[in-house]
């Protein structure tokens, strides 16, 4: 792995840690979701610092070069994250619909619409 890629990976992981910590400090993301992003940052950091851990895996998995495997891993992780978000949105939608229904019924009852 080239030195440039190592530096890029380390910089990206540090930026990810800084951003996550910032959002956590601002109260924009809850702790349980921040853990996921810290885990992402840690993986990127490990790939940058100890590329040899991954060098013996990528050929066995059928990747031509190490960078392809890194991209592959992250696309995979993002797909999982996306699915988790889809499920979360569907659950939130159900809750929002229920709240709108209950609130509208209460409001209409209060205003003697039925």
């Amino acid at each position: 792995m080239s030195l440039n890629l190592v530096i890029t990976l380390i910089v990206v992981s540090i930026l990810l840690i800084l951003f996550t910590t910032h959002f956590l400090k601002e109260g924009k993301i809850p702790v349980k979701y921040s853990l996921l992003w810290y885990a992402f940052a840690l993986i990127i950091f490990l790939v940058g610092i100890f590329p040899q851990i991954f060098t013996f895996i990528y050929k066995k998995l059928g990747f031509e070069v190490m960078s392809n495997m890194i991209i592959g891993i992250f696309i995979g992780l993002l797909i999982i994250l996306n699915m988790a978000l889809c499920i979360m949105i569907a659950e939130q939608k159900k809750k929002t619909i229920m709240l709108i229904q209950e609130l509208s019924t209460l409001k209409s009852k209060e205003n003697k619409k039925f």
Partner: protein
Amino acid sequence: MSRVLLIIPAYNEEANILKTYKSIIDYNKKNKETYDVIVINDGSKDNTEKILCDNNIPHICLIHNLGIGGAVQTGYKYAFEHGYDVAVQFDGDGQHDVRYVKKIISPIIKGQADMVIGSRFIEDIDTFKSSFTRRIGIKIISIFMKFTSGFKIVDTTSGFRACSKKIISEFSLSYPCEYPEPITTAEVLKKGYVVSEVSVEMNEREGGVSSIRAWKSVYYMLNVCLALLSVKIRRYKKCR
């Protein structure tokens, strides 16, 4: 005597809602029936709310548009909370004829069915039956329905339907937001409830815009078929 509630979802139905409501009230007077009505104003942007208030029509005004599924479910929740024996979905656009309500609720009152669908296609009555392409779509959905539930339902997208107390309770807890008619039918059948169809006549829309527009028909059909396949693989608790 069974208490019957007519649930009328309405979105931008200023042109028809009063006429629909009056037709039910007139029918009640003429035939000594006591059908109650609840209109669910699904966040209409026109004068529907004003018409409902000015004419003292019982209604629930949703603070945000939820779509047909969310609106109808609000009606089922109302029916459940007020202990109705039968709930009938009834369109606010003048498509459904109140004279057929008796025919639709009859199998439920007699205990012969848990859900009854008012069908345009089971008898060859010469009335409005929707466009040719939409009828092909309904036929394809019907084939998927048979595959999913093992039962043949001819008019899978009919919104003119009656439900028993047990189904009211089920629907008040869970009701799909999208494509509710075919999906709820398939789910109810999979749970082991009895669904029957009775022949009804329907009128063409007198105003407003249908929730299924022509250019969306193919997309609608694909989604419904996929949703029915998902009903096939899901596990449901049997009712009996």
